[in-house]
């Protein structure tokens, strides 16, 4: 696959927004929903941690070269061309360290706000990008599902459309429910051409009784365009007028320029700061499927990720709303322990999940998989991915995990201690 395994990967997957119905019927648009925003802060804002930013790394991120078992001789012998020498690694403890590109996340680690959950995977790993990503996003490892785990939470809470927002080009399956679906918002801006006015576009966005579902969704995309123009402009203004962010913090600040992940997180930051009532944001970075010449390209991607998340977390630490945010970073699988003949790696299994935020209890969770006790050349998982989701559902979204994890009873990870 391309070095750019794209974020726009929605394809023949069972989810793909299939069957997800338009919220509240075809006539309801985000604009109308936003106008119902309460004057007083809703109850959930009193939770210590209440907003989730899901960062999806498409293509299969090489976990062993992200959180590196640098002290293990087996690491160096399995992938001599790809391995980082111990002196290159940013050490976290006597066994594990971060990729040299992850300098900012090291600072987050030092501040004890970065949790690294080790060896995370679902049962019976699948090495297809598409199936594996479906499983991560649906949280349904045993059978294909038509909904994402966040989508089911949207269903269960009868959430409004702004509750979950994606800044990716297409709606990720994780935000698709049966009756509710997240909103998809571009980071490229919403300005209308000069020759058309908002009223005309809004008129195109009115739903019609009996209209086919896809046609209704096409209409809604115009209504949403007007809404998002309004929201994003509102975000701009509020940032300036409230002065919650000092001057240098803008689109290009401390994020290394216009990389897409940085642009997406910039929008999340603005929305959080002005109090847009979104609970779940989905952003992504593609390009991790490095079957050949992996090392430099992988380090470049991790550098982008590090700069974007590091900058975002710094910014979030400055406001109370920002301190309630947690970032979760995952990929559809890790990669084979042994390098292939092209200085790359083929599809593998378990990998670390990163959880970061002001109120996250930093440190390692779970166990680093052995590099010698392998399952057919692949790492054995030590943590079920639903244990991470369960902790997020319970502590961030205030939900009962089993209800949205198909009955799975997660082992809660103490990622969000009450005192912090």
């Amino acid at each position, binding site marked *: *696959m*391309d070095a750019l395994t794209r974020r*726009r990967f929605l394809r023949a997957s069972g989810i793909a927004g299939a069957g997800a119905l338009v919220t509240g019927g075809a006539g309801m648009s985000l604009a109308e929903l936003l106008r119902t925003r309460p004057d007083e802060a809703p109850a959930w804002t009193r939770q210590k941690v209440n907003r989730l930013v899901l960062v999806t790394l498409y293509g299969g991120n090489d976990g062993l070269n992200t959180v590196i078992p640098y002290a293990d001789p087996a690491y160096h012998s399995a992938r001599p061309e790809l391995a980082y020498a111990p002196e290159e690694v940013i050490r976290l403890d006597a066994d594990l360290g971060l990729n040299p590109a992850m300098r900012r996340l090291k600072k987050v680690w030092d501040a004890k706000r970065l949790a690294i959950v080790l060896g995370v995977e679902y049962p019976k790993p699948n090495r297809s990008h598409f199936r594996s990503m479906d499983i991560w996003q649906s949280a349904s490892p045993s059978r294909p599902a038509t909904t994402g785990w966040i989508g089911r939470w949207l269903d269960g809470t009868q959430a409004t459309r702004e509750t979950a927002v994606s800044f990716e080009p297409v709606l990720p399956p994780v935000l698709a429910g049966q009756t509710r679906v997240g909103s998809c*918002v*571009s980071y490229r801006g919403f300005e209308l051409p000069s020759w058309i006015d908002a009223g005309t576009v809004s008129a195109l966005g009115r739903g019609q009784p009996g209209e086919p579902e896809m*046609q209704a969704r096409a209409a809604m995309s115009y209504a949403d365009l007007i809404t998002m123009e309004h929201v994003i402009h509102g975000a701009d203004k509020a940032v300036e007028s409230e002065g919650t962010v000092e001057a240098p913090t803008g689109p290009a600040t401390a994020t290394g320029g216009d990389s897409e992940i940085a642009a997406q997180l910039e929008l999340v930051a603005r929305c959080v700061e002005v109090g847009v009532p979104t609970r779940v944001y989905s952003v992504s970075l593609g390009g991790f499927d490095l079957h050949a010449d992996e090392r430099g390209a992988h380090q470049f991607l991790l550098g982008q990720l590090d700069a974007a998340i590091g900058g975002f977390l710094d910014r979030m630490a400055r406001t109370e709303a920002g301190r309630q945010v947690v970032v979760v970073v995952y990929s559809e699988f890790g990669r084979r322990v042994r390098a*292939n003949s092209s200085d790359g790696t083929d599809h593998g299994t378990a990998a670390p999940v990163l959880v970061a935020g002001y109120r996250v209890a930093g440190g390692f969770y779970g166990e680093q998989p052995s590099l010698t006790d392998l399952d057919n050349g692949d790492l054995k998982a030590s943590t079920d991915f639903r244990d991470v989701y369960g902790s997020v559902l319970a502590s961030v979204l205030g939900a009962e995990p089993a209800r949205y994890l198909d009955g799975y009873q997660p082992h809660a990870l103490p990622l969000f201690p009450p005192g912090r």
Partner: protein
Amino acid sequence: MTDDIALLLRRAGFGPTASELAAARAAGYATTVAALLEPPGPDIGATSAPIPELGPDPYAEQPDPSDDQRRRFDATRADQLAQITRWWLDRMTVANHQAVERLLFFWHGHWATSVTKVKSAQLMLTQHRTLRDAPDFAAMTQRMVVDPALVYWLDGQRNVKGAANENLARELFELFTLGIGNYTEHDVKQAGRALTGWHIDLRSQRCVFAPAYYDGGRKTILGSTADFGAASLVDLLMRRPACPRFIASRLWYRYASSTQPIPARLREAMAAAFPAPAAMLRTLFSDDAFRATRGTMVKQPIEWLVGVMRQLRIRPANIPAATLTELVDGLAGLGQRPFAPPSVGGWPSGPAWLTSAAAQVRLSLAGKLVNLAVDGRLTPEDVAYLLGIDTWTNRTYALLRQQRNSRLLMVLGTVSPEYLVT
């Protein structure tokens, strides 16, 4: 049923012109299916858009250029890519054999190879010719496993005896021939061995077999044991019952419904016509289940753009270069630049295209297109006629009636929810 004929033309091609629609209605459904899938004689329209001669890829002559040469070479490559992009959009627009062009577009999405990694417009065009010339799916697959663009895209040239790179083998099974669930991890690893030994010759634009890198040992794949190589592996795959079914379901996914599964009965009927794609499509188009999917398919951006150009009589070959660049950038903004699928899994589908971000880009793109074509006074009825729309909803009709500017009226027609869905 006249409505069925409009549906057929919209799905089988890129958007019928008013005269094509009238002719098809006069001919009837069955005759139209036959004319689409077995068009008589050469494609007269397409003769004005012959496949371009690009000249050599600069890197083929000088594989190890200086920095200065590299800058010039990359500029040449960008220009060559612009040429083939313009040509393909032009060909889709002017071809009379619309179903042939639409099927090629399907195969491009099926073997989803992107120039963003391959870099060479020549190799992309070579792949395009291969897809165009293949008589059926079995022959196509034989040629594609040694197609240099596909091989490079999936790191096949790095797949050598002793340390296989499984990228090509895996996607050959999962995305191109069998579908997930019809093979094991063991099969993928062994097939990776069977595909070793091919490297890319940029000058001849071919894959060349190098026996020294080929793993000639015995392999057990899908229960069969032999000294498999690329050709015998493809033969094996073509004999698997899963393969015709998988191709049938992929055709259904792009021509009938991306949200509902193919009915098992229809899948078997289409599979019986394998490996001839035209015969499989004939079975699909002749089935009631196809007609029942009316109103469920979202036009892909290229289908939308080419459809508008056909119906408004805009020829990409005649568009000024700067404007054409804007149109192609617009397609990229919608998520569908020709020769650059976002994933080996192919293009997105259905509601994934209907984002607010796409709505904004589509408006701007429609404005540029309409400026190239529309003059004079139009009514909402004229717009419906030109765009082949059966009826407007009250919403759209009311909005169109308010417009005093014919160009804005046409823009609203081309971006209307009614026009975006077939």
